[in-house]
């Protein structure tokens, strides 16, 4: 392969990567959520959500209600949690009024206070990354495997790179 073909393959690869990034960023803007698609990582919402299911998030304009399933992150946590809101106290004053929110996983025995940082009794609107509005089963299992076995992730990326670079586009 000469230099021009190599360059062309490189640009092709770059186009694929930037298209994916553009689609992702558009979804972030459209949904208002910083992570519009997430994979369920734990069994705390079974039998509704299992590990490996995909969830679509949206930041609604209406304030949080009990019964909503939300994805939230508390300070100091890297991995967000998907649980259901079980209690809301909305202040009478303030614009927008402050909310105190308590959550619980459907499959958990107790509420989530043991997961919040010490001394924190409530979540508020700023902790919510999005409300779950859509669901797709099983598709995210690949992500779980890549998380549990990092060598698989590297092997997959390497294989994809080889396929893209060696394919002969017309």
């Amino acid at each position: 392969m000469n230099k021009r073909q190599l360059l062309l393959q490189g640009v092709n690869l770059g186009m694929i990567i930037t298209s994916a990034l553009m689609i992702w960023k558009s979804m972030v803007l459209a949904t208002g959520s910083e992570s519009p698609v997430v994979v369920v990582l734990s069994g705390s919402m079974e039998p509704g959500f299992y590990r490996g299911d995909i969830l679509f998030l949206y930041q609604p304009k209406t304030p949080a209600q009990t019964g909503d399933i939300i994805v939230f992150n508390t300070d100091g946590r890297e991995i967000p949690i998907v649980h259901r809101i079980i209690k809301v106290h909305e202040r009478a004053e303030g614009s927008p009024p402050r909310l105190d929110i308590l959550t619980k996983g459907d499959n958990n025995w107790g509420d989530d206070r043991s997961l919040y940082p010490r001394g924190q009794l409530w979540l508020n609107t700023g902790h919510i990354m999005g409300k779950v509005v859509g669901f797709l089963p099983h598709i995210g299992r690949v992500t779980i495997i890549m998380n549990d076995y990092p060598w698989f992730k590297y092997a997959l990326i390497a294989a994809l790179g080889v396929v893209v670079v060696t394919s002969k586009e017309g």
Partner: protein
Amino acid sequence: MSHSWLSRANALATFAGTVLAVVCLAVTATDYFHKSQPVLSCEFVGTEGLQKEFGHDRAHVVLNLTADLRSEFSWNTKQLFVFVDFEFATRKNARNQMVMWSANVLDKEHALIRVPTLRAQYPYALTDQGFGLRDREFNITVGWNVMPRVGALFTRRRTFAGLGPLPDEYFQPTAGRVRRPGSDEFVEVPTGGAEEDADPYYTDA
């Protein structure tokens, strides 16, 4: 040329992925056409206790719930998460909304819900962020979160307003003895409805 097994596998995978995506969208579109006729009724049986605890009030309320949600099940419904909300407003908080009871309904046969003495299940609790529960008006909202096999989640609610108010004085909770709404009269009610010894909420109707 492009007849290698690699490009065939690539074409097959792309086609399969596209078909799968279209089928998923079609499946979730059918939810839009599903008509349901849920039938619900909810009564306020009475209050088993109203306590002043350290920093907040706590109420023990008994309801009588009947909910026929069988028509909510479509072919794309995986389960219904049914919950009962206790809602009230105070001077400090415009909205206080808390789940007091919930159930996971996995199929249509179990979607006829009858709980004649519905009480708060652990860890749900009826508390105020202050001491505002005496003589407090409240609403009960029954909600069901329809969780699909594929596609959009949505929640439907039915509110029963003005069932209260709660009694206007504190009294210690006694299981099985409720103070009837709007009176000082106490009556005995069955203690079923607590979660450990609960009869199944559904009936074989």
